[in-house]
């Protein structure tokens, strides 16, 4: 029974990691670089949801909508100011990395200007937990899991079954060839940033609901990065599997060896895993450019 409770806790944690990892992987897939502004974008979007919606007494759905729309819009803005010229001028890919760090600092700075170092708390959107056969399952976990799953299924459908999704896959495989085939590469990349930003907004709200809102909450993006690496950089199903495994691994280790040592062992296990399987669970041999 105890193990089952830890498993539930791990899946709840993993479902939020999955949203972060997927948004992260999406950009890696298309531009082959790790977008480290993703965490700060989550923070900015989540705070927008708080100040525009939740703080004014609006419910969960409007809060999510505001955060998702903010995430998408700001991500699109980021693509234009920080990455577009690097892409069009075929500048060294190292600049993607530098730009993403700079952009992240900018987003975080905007949040700090508005809220200082204070933390905020979303109103309680959910009631008491369910008790099922001696196990406690928080309503927030169920709803977060369901919404995350729905968003990821929608993304998977879009990538596999729609014209835009096929364009996205083509661009991620080879930008130049995709362009020669008549695909508007810039539009496709913009689309990837919009979706990634929307996922960042969604993840930001869920993180805020579970762990309060604070300007450095975006640092949790490291967990999304780890999940992407475990799953195989660039692979969306791999990112989800990696996130779930990471969530379950963390809760299991905390229950066995406590909170102090758990992160150390998590990283050791990850390193060993990557030694054995460098491309992750489902990844192909994509080489990161920056």
């Amino acid at each position: 029974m105890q193990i089952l409770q830890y498993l539930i806790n791990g899946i709840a944690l993993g479902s939020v990691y999955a949203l972060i990892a997927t948004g992260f992987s999406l950009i890696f897939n298309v531009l082959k670089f790790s977008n480290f502004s993703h965490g700060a974008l989550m923070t900015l979007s989540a705070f927008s949801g708080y100040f525009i919606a939740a703080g004014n007494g609006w419910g969960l759905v409007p809060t999510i909508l505001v955060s998702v729309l903010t995430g998408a819009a700001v991500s699109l803005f980021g693509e234009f100011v920080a990455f577009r010229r690097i892409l069009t001028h075929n500048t060294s890919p190292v600049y993607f990395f530098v730009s993403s760090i700079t952009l992240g600092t900018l987003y975080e700075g905007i949040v700090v200007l508005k809220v200082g170092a204070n933390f905020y708390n979303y109103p309680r959107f959910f009631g008491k937990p369910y008790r099922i056969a001696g196990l406690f399952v928080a309503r927030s976990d169920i709803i977060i899991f369901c919404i995350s799953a729905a968003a990821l299924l929608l993304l998977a459908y879009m990538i596999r079954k729609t014209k835009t999704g096929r364009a996205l896959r083509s661009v991620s495989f080879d930008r130049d060839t995709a362009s020669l085939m008549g695909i508007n590469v810039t539009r496709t990349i913009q689309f990837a940033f919009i979706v990634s930003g929307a996922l960042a907004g969604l993840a930001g709200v869920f993180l805020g609901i579970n762990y309060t809102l604070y300007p450095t909450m975006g640092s949790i993006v490291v967990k999304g990065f780890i999940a992407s690496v475990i799953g195989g950089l660039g692979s969306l199903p791999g990112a989800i599997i990696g996130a779930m495994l990471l969530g379950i691994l963390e809760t299991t280790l905390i229950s066995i060896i406590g909170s102090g040592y758990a992160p150390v062992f998590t990283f050791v296990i990850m390193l060993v895993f990557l030694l054995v399987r460098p491309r992750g669970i489902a990844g192909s041999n994509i080489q990161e450019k920056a």
Partner: protein
Amino acid sequence: MKKVLSLVLMLAMLLGMSTVFATEGPINIGCLQDISGPTSSLGNMVYGGVKWAVDEINAAGGVNGRMINVILYDTKGDVTEAINAYTRAVTSDGVSAIVGPPVANIGLAVAPESENNDVPILGFAIDKNCQLKPDGTPYKNMFAFQPAAHQQSAIMGEFAIKNGFTKFGVVYNEGNAYSVSLQAPFIETVTAGGAEVAQVVTYTKNDKDFRTLLQPILNADVEAVFIPNYTQELILIAQQIRSMGFEGALICGLDACPPFNTLFGEPADGIYFINNIDGTEPAIIDMVNNVKTATGIDATNKFFLGYDVANILKGIFEEVGTNPADVRDAVEKVTDYKGLTGNITIDPATHMPKGLEMVMFKYEGSTPIMLERYAAD
């Protein structure tokens, strides 16, 4: 060469003179607080209280005709920033005294540094190691103006035993001096009172999801959980333990004082906490209303701590002048100062207050209800 040497010497003398406190003009006091870091809500409140008191003093003519000037230093909740700011205060700004932060980690870092100077730091860090050296003697400049951790924990422990709780869990941050300093005396007190501490759980500052850590406490079927942590962590732990179905008592330190109830986001029934002030006293109510009207700020306990200390300094400046060493000696002798946070007497052996009262509260919904006063002995 001689000219250059003379110029250098003159410059050094001028700089040296500028670091000596002034005997005329405004009296400088430093206010070393976290204004923009993780404990900024506490630091801003202390500064607000100091500023309010100083404005009152200056409006009434100052100290023997001299105005008091508060120099604010933002530690940003960071030890290095705090030490740099402290050095600037005592070497460049010529402060006669410093109002210190209510943050143990900062107090612990500044304490050894303060031995090299004569400027007293009137702070609120409740870890006794901020005031006492390892050999048990006090740092000459470090003072606390609220009961120490062992005193506060003893009060919370006595209260818990008196109210019939017999089985406890404890969850604390092993990397935070404040949290660490509160848990051991609480466990000692309740154990001495015949109760059982069934589970003690530690966490680190990186933890945000506490559910797996809290599970053993729930499994132990405890009646109350002691949570001596900063407000943000406290909110997370309280929310998560409630989401896991725990309906017992949560016994918390000063961090559950208002505005915890407004930040918590849900009814805070079953949460007990200790406070420096009794918000039902007329003098406190008056000041809260005045501050709210003038500034829009809801004054909390840290505001009143800052207010009392600034007024204590005023009395000392009137009595002994503004030489930091004289001020320090006078701070050590503060006796029965009747402040809004109680009657303050500093114990020269520990540089902490003796017999200062604290008040236990509980929340009903989001309303704090005063329960009982305890003297911190």
